[in-house]
């Protein structure tokens, strides 16, 4: 596997997780969670601290990163989101409140980095997590393990939402909170769970992302536009759309830009961050409801029909 493709797959998996988390929180509590940025960064620092202080491969600290992200989500829900929702806050207020929370988390991250720098004599502000990785099938293990982690996690999430009683209650609350409340579903518990899962996905995504790009205190802040781009590309009203959107944006940033630079020259590399955003804008112009709004079944049905006709003609 070419190194640019391997890194692209890791990055795309990380964006799928984070964009999925943003979509889930927006669908459940109408909140664009800007704190996703620092939650992702904290996920990276949990894994980094585990690897450098506890030893072993970074992947064994991923569940811990998810848990820390979940706790941060609960704090955000009970400390900010729930009181504001109860006062009937509009979307912009909910969004700005998470921006404040993000700044608090960023300060905590900086303090923690100071602690690691001065007390532990480490270099936490520029970390290449590759050094903790190992080789698997001739490539960095991250490029095999992390797409698998993303697939397993997202499949588990799908099964949770479809097969479990609480998952069904969650979907019902997301789709129609009034009706769900009338049916006796505790919406408070549902929203809290959404924040646990959303926060966990942010932290897990940040931990995964640090295996592709340099880990810094602003890791999440630098990539938050792409997390949102993924969620918006997905359509914002479909969890699966958000996940797919994140993956497409991530892979475009690597594979798409590399392909274009080979075709048109190295000047394209300067627009690396613009290319996925351009793709998002173009997709939304054609499909205003994003990837989730594309009639995939009809599209595949038509393609299957065309292929069938061709086979019939040959026969």
């Amino acid at each position, binding site marked *: 596997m070419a190194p640019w493709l391997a890194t692209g797959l890791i990055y795309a998996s990380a964006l799928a997780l984070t964009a999925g988390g943003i979509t889930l929180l927006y669908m459940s509590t109408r909140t664009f969670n800007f704190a996703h940025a620092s939650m992702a960064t904290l996920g990276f620092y949990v894994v980094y601290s585990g690897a450098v202080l506890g030893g072993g491969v970074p992947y064994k600290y991923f569940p811990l990163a998810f848990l820390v992200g979940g706790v941060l989500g609960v704090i955000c829900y009970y400390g900010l989101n729930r009181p504001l929702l109860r006062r009937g806050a509009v979307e912009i207020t909910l969004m700005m409140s998470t921006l404040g929370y993000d700044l608090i988390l960023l300060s905590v991250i900086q303090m923690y980095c100071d602690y690691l720098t001065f007390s532990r*004599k*480490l270099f936490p502000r520029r970390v290449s997590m590759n050094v903790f990785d190992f080789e698997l099938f001739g490539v960095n293990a991250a490029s095999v393990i992390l797409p698998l982690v993303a697939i397993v996690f997202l499949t588990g999430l799908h099964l949770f939402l479809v097969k479990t009683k609480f998952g069904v209650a969650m979907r019902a609350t997301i789709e129609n909170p009034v009706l769900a409340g009338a049916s006796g579903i505790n919406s408070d518990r549902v929203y809290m769970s959404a924040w646990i899962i959303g926060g966990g996905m942010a932290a897990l995504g940040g931990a995964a992302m640090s295996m592709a790009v340099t880990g810094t205190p602003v890791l999440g802040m630098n990539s938050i536009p792409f997390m949102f781009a993924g969620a918006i590309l997905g359509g914002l009203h479909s969890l699966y759309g958000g996940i797919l959107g994140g993956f497409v944006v991530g892979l475009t940033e690597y594979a798409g830009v590399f392909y274009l630079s080979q075709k048109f020259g190295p000047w394209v590399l300067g627009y690396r961050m613009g290319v996925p955003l351009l793709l998002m804008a173009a997709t939304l112009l054609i499909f205003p409801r994003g990837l989730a709004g594309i009639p995939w079944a009809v599209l595949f049905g038509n393609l299957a029909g065309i292929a069938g006709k061709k086979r019939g003609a040959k026969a």
Partner: protein
Amino acid sequence: MKRKFVVGIVCLLAVALIFAGCGKKAEGPAPGPAAPTTHTIVGLFPLTGVLSTFGENSAEVAKLAAADVNEWLEKENKNWRLRIVIEDTATDPPTGLRKMQSWFGEGVKFFAGPQASGVARECLAFANANKILFISPSSTSPALAIADDWLFRFCTSDAIQGPAVAKMAQEAGVEQLIFVWRGDTWGDGLQKASAEAAKKFGINIYPQELRYDPMLEDFTVQAASLNGYVNDLVSKGVSLDKIGITVISFEEIAPFFTAVNAYPQLKQVKWFGSDGTAMSAALLADPIASKFAIETKFASTKNRPEAATEKSRYDYVRQHIQKTLNRDTDAYSYNTYDIIWSLAKAIDEVGYDSEKVKAILPRVADEWTKVHGASGHVVLNEAGDRAFADYNIWVINDKLEWENVGYYDSRADKINWSRKLY
């Protein structure tokens, strides 16, 4: 009811605090000898971002210098004390300017830093308009060598470093040189100076150049492109040992080397760096990147502190950073020590007046650094920049330490090797 009670208590507390504040001046001890005045210098250093380890070094050195200045002021019974405030520019131009504006609003007229040329350029117009004196320990862009502005630099311009970088390539027998550089004021200036010098030395510059976004943290795609350029040169009959790559970067060199490490043939070409990478603690701390640097004999240039005088603070500063940060400090942090002392000496002579300090700074810096200078003797030219400097050449050795293997003599335009690299 309960809510009203809580609101009442809060109001009472607020009123009590207001009155406590009002009464503050009336209390306290009886008037005695006047307390010394405090003058503030703000250190604008990149504690985060791609120069963070250099910023940490300079911040620690600035605090050390301020403590030494205060000790001297006390000993001399002077009626003022120095207060040093460290601010993080995040290696980001708008952040650096915002910090300068904010402290200027508090009445501060003297700044040490910023370190990066991009940040210094952002601050320049505001500083010129408001007569704010700022001295950078490490901004080297030739574009900022401007006479009569309010920026002084205790380092030399890259008009001197450019030939030093190109000279290394010439000595390594390079015939084709590829440039990779961060697209900011510093990177553009040094790349231009190096490329011009390389052409004069008869080295061909590869037409495809990689100028990258300074915000970039991952170089996978750039590494793939670079490998393509080397393939192209090899297919045209150039042998790998005649190909050189000059990387003009800050501490993003670590992820850059991690990315290029995936291409075996890139370990067989010659690699050169600059003052942005020499003595980088971040590069040492990354096992993959530092191994790549050792294998390719990655050579970087950095200001050569002049021969230490008997009273030079060079060893003193070096030992302090080893004790506090457990690492070897970089060459520019010695400039920071001299900046704080020069400013303090000038303020002591003419007061906290930026115009008067500006007028005497070259003389004060000259006099103080001639005897005590941690970075050697600082002589400023008409643009307010350090006039002369040679450049040490640094490589990482097998013991994973930065080793000085020679120096570029700018006046003789030659490299004096203490350990021959090529």
